[in-house]
């Protein structure tokens, strides 16, 4: 499947075999057709090939299927065979394409001269320089060479270790700035095992998250969002229609909090006290599972001092709230507590909560045979920095890690790095660390390289190169292996010639472990097709270690008057996403800010401090000061300033450099919060947001109903038109009428659909200035609104909905087009003919949903970003209106396939990009003429929940039917 790929010449493929009319871009189509000399049997020009591989953007390890056209990958989608992602892929995963095609990627090896300038060199010269330095260092003594990287799969990490020992060293440090290693430490204390558990949120009835933002970034967001949607789906429990009850405890209302029943705003560091207090309620009320084997007296003494009243005084959280959380947790059949804070106490308390209610092995399970943590202990990193400072390190190789940006100033990594005479940086887009390095080596993007992954027991992901390299880069594994051989490593110590061999060998070993009887080639070929080997993992039998109860957490105290809570940005994460224009341009779902970083301040706090919205404020901690724009918002607790990570790069390519501020610069090592002082500067710096209004102004853009009403079978009152009023003869749809059903209750706002739309439909990225002028080009967006205060009891915490063209039956856009560019297709789509459009923008003005986009600028994709463009979709020029097409190219391609195969279309065969990407399967697409289609059945099965946006106001008859958000009515449960 992929062996042949390596022999292909990328350029030949790119221009191959007369891809007639399929070459996109703004230039006229190529005038030459260059056929293959020898054709590739597995490839038909004009027909995509699919390669399974593994996502490496975060540690979750979701499976990916890469769609490849004419030898270049144009889209990433989730791998349905992978048990973690199950076919979905988040925005970050999809945007890794823009890491591959990033125009600022290092194209060649560079060396830094004495004058500090970079000089382009060949790989031969670079390799010689590296090996020369390495052998001098190795001769000088032991541990003179060091390797600092983020974990990049078991095989590559192992090779790095072998390579180091060939150079007489053992200093390999694997570091992640935002690793959830406290969870592993807490598991060590509680259960004597250093792995993180897996969760089954769908098995629970109640959920409390203590700072674990599992919808945005915590652990495995795709998987947990999917489980959470199942948890919130109305189902019969004990003869009653219910949904799971959930609460989020943390300083900021993020997407996870917004989708819960309760958001308990606390100062950072107070989560543990709340967790202990919830435990107190359970112990006092006797809601301890009799089978859990806990001694009540021990528990009582453990929670002593955490009665809700006392905790309420310290934290400011009302005692009733804590009691309510305790009731909810203790009385549920199946409950789960999650912890995502930086302190161990919260994690321990959450494990205890799960254990005492008998949920270990049910909603929380440790798996037998978990792979060891790929991360090094903190002491290793401290040791490395100390060794650097003592000038013991002569060569430091940094791969895939950006310590200069992502380490606290207190770690003094910058100073330590200056003591290292030769720093080798291996990576993609040169970042802050590359700016200090002496030798810069361009390495393959994971989509160009062999990789494996072991995210959890039973899951062995396999990553294969899906295309030829874009730049003059090399596989990091191959660079390391070559260098190890130069050190005299023989076939015994390093038995593999290439990274491909090493990965293959790993899978042969796995085959032996699994006792698979197939030929090794067949086993590996099957793993390549499936994207890995997926086996069931059994839950391990774990015993709680009562010694934990000896270390009672200290009461938190009131905490600082003003606290800074730093959180990973849903798209930029710890900063690694900042070089990808999609991730910069897609609005952060809660605050709806693009291309910037910001500091959220509660209106009360802002008033007390005299801070105005959009004012530049200086945040000063004991580590340093950052200046950032203030966002006055009620999505943060008063007395807390919340700030996302990810921006503030001084390097890292054109899309990242010089935007916002870096929150790592004000944090202590390992911390995500600090006491902070705020200075208002009086300067204004406007944050850019495509959101016009915080509330819906009385209109029902997003509708919700309570589970109580749903159980009683009462639909909320909504304005209904007497019947569709027709002015003209109605349209007839003899074949199909495409429609969509969107379950708002399942939508988490994660914006994977938005990223998928950008990738599939060649949407232009417009930049911050364009966005400020309201010219963002997204065909699909996540809208969010806050319910008015007086309705808060009868509303979800936040209304979140995907908004895209509603493909109206009575479309306001169509009759106003003077040139018939906006028109109604035979299959019920509001089509837009780019070649006919003259740009009057009447349609946009007349659209009540504001989902049409006008090209104010000629869209640009700096090379090689243009290689990502989908050849099946026209690249629109300036002056043209564009909009959601229900992915017409996908519809047409399936229709052609059905027609040529002389068969009928199957239900759910056509999947638009947004529906494909959705982790919670909130979007389904199908034929409204077919009453049995999954999409129509979803409407019928949830008749009480259906609504159409603005239909009552405008009689537009949208083809999209939404299903109402479900919430628990407060005070009526």
């Amino acid at each position, binding site marked *: 499947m992929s062996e042949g790929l390596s022999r292909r010449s990328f350029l030949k493929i790119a221009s191959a075999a*007369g*891809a*007639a*009319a399929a070459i996109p871009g703004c230039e006229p189509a190529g005038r030459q*057709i260059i*056929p293959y000399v020898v054709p590739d049997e597995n490839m038909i020009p004009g027909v995509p090939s699919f390669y399974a591989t593994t996502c490496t953007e975060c540690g979750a390890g979701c499976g990916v299927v890469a769609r490849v056209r004419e030898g270049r990958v144009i889209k990433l989608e989730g791998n349905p065979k992978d048990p973690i992602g199950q076919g979905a892929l988040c925005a970050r995963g999809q945007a890794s394409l823009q890491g591959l095609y990033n125009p600022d990627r290092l194209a060649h090896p560079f060396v830094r001269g004495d004058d500090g300038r970079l000089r382009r060199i060949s790989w031969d010269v670079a390799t010689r320089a590296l090996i020369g330095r390495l052998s001098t260092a190795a001769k000088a003594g032991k541990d003179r060479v060091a390797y600092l990287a983020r974990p990049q799969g078991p095989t590559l990490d192992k090779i790095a270790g072998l390579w180091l020992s060939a150079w007489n060293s053992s200093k390999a440090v694997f570091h992640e700035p935002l690793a959830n290693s406290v969870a592993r430490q807490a598991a060590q204390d509680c259960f004597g095992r250093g792995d993180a558990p897996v969760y089954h949120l769908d098995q629970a009835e109640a959920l409390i998250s203590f700072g674990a933002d599992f919808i945005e970034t915590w652990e495995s967001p795709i998987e947990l969002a999917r489980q959470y949607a199942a948890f919130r789906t109305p189902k019969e429990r004990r003869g009653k229609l219910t949904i799971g009850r959930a609460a989020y405890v943390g300083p900021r209302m993020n997407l996870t909090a917004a989708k819960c029943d309760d958001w308990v705003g606390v100062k950072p560091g107070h989560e543990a006290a709340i967790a202990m207090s919830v435990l107190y309620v359970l112990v006092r009320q006797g809601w301890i599972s009799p089978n859990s084997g806990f001694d009540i007296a021990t528990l009582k003494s453990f929670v002593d001092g955490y009665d809700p009243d006392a905790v309420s005084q310290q934290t400011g959280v009302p005692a009733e709230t804590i009691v309510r959380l305790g009731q909810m947790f203790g009385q549920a059949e199946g409950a789960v507590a999650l912890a995502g804070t930086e302190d161990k106490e919260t994690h321990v308390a959450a494990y205890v909560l799960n254990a005492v209610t008998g949920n270990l092995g049910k909603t929380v399970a440790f798996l037998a045979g978990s792979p060891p943590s790929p991360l090094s202990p903190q002491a290793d990193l401290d040791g490395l920095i100390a060794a650097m400072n003592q000038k013991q390190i002569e060569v430091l190789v940094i791969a895939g890690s950006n310590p200069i940006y992502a380490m606290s100033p207190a770690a003094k990594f910058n100073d330590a790095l200056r003591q290292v005479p030769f720093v080798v940086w291996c990576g993609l887009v040169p970042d802050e660390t590359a700016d200090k390095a002496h030798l810069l080596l361009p390495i393959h993007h994971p989509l160009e390289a062999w990789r494996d992954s072991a995210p959890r027991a039973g899951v062995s992901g396999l990553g294969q190169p899906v295309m030829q390299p874009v730049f003059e880069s090399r596989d990091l594994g191959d660079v390391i292996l070559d260098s190890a051989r130069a050190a005299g490593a023989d076939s015994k110590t390093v038995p593999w010639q290439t990274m491909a061999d090493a990965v293959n060998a790993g899978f042969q070993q796995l085959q032996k472990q699994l006792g698979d009887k197939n030929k090794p080639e067949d086993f590996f070929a099957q793993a390549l097709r499936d994207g890995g080997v997926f086996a069931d993992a059994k839950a391990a039998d774990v015993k709680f270690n009562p010694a934990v109860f000896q270390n009672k957490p200290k009461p938190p105290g009131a905490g600082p008057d003003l606290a800074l809570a730093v959180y990973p940005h849903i798209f930029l994460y710890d900063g690694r996403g900042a070089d990808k224009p999609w991730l910069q341009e897609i609005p952060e779902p809660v605050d709806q800010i693009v291309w910037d970083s910001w500091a959220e301040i509660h209106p009360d706090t802002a008033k007390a401090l005299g801070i105005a919205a959009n004012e530049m404020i200086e945040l000063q901690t004991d580590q340093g000061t950052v200046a950032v724009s203030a966002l006055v918002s009620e999505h943060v607790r008063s007395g807390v300033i919340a700030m996302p990570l990810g921006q503030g790069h001084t390097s890292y390519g054109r899309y990242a450099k010089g935007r916002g501020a870096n929150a790592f610069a004000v944090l202590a090592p390992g911390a995500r919060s600090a006491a902070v002082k705020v200075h208002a500067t009086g300067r204004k710096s406007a944050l850019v947001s495509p959101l016009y209004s915080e509330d819906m102004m009385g209109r029902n853009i997003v509708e919700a109903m309570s589970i109580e009403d749903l159980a009683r079978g009462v639909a909320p009152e909504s304005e209904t038109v007497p019947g569709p009023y027709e002015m003209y003869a109605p349209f007839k749809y003899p074949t199909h009428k495409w429609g969509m059903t969107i379950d708002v209750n399942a939508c988490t706002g994660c914006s994977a659909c938005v990223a998928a739309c950008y990738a599939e439909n060649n949407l232009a990225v417009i930049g911050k200035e364009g966005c400020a002028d309201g010219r963002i080009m997204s065909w699909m967006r996540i809208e969010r609104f806050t319910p008015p205060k007086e309705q808060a009891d009868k509303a979800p915490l936040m209304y979140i909905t995907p908004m895209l063209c509603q493909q109206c039956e009575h479309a306001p856009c169509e009759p106003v087009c003077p040139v018939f560019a906006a028109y109604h*297709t035979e299959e019920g789509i509001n089509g837009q*003919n780019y070649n006919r459009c003259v740009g009057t923008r009447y349609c946009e003005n007349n659209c009540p949903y504001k989902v049409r986009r006008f090209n104010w600028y000629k869209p640009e994709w700096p090379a090689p970003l243009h290689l990502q463009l989908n050849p*099946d979709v026209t690249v629109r020029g300036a002056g043209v209106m564009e909009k959601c097409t229900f992915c017409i190219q996908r519809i047409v391609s399936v229709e052609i396939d059905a027609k040529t195969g002389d068969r009928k279309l199957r239900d759910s065969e056509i999947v638009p990009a947004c529906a494909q990407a959705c982790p919670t399967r909130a979007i389904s697409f199908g034929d409204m003429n077919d009453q049995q289609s999954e999409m129509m059945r979803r409407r019928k099965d949830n008749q009480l929940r259906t609504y159409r946006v603005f239909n009552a106001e405008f009689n537009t008859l949208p083809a999209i039917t939404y299903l109402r958000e479900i919430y628990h009515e407060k005070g009526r449960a």
Partner: protein
Amino acid sequence: MNRILIPVALATFVGGLMVLAFSQRPWAPRQDVQQPIPFSHRIHAGVNKIPCQYCHEYARRSQTSGVPPVQRCVGCHGDALFGGLKPVTRPWTDHSQPPFEIRWNRVYTLPDFVRFTHQPHIWAGVACQECHGPVEEMDRIEPVHEINMGFCLDCHQKRGATQDCFVCHH
């Protein structure tokens, strides 16, 4: 006054017409395309009756019909010693030269806003000649029809095929 204005206006008008008449839209089929080797469709498709899709093999499966790989040429025009056919030109019988890539010049081009695909047309039984003309009688390929929207729609109307704009323009 008019004595100056009228000739100027007339000259501008005629000039404009001439620009229109002689200019080529980038997608207009070109009569003057020369190929790098004197390949003859008449000999192959006409005299020797090789089916179109023997060489343009992707037409029934893909958007593009595909230009044959050089390997396909060598299939017949291989080594003369082993019964290879002798072509008019020498490239593949010249033993000093391995098969090379040929840079054909494109005759038919469509604008970027048209998503044409060969596959359904082949399956609907449209003969290649209906759009490309009697290729089997041409030594050098010259377009017979200008492939514009009117041309497409004429046929779509006659055959009762879709006339929905969106199917091709998206």
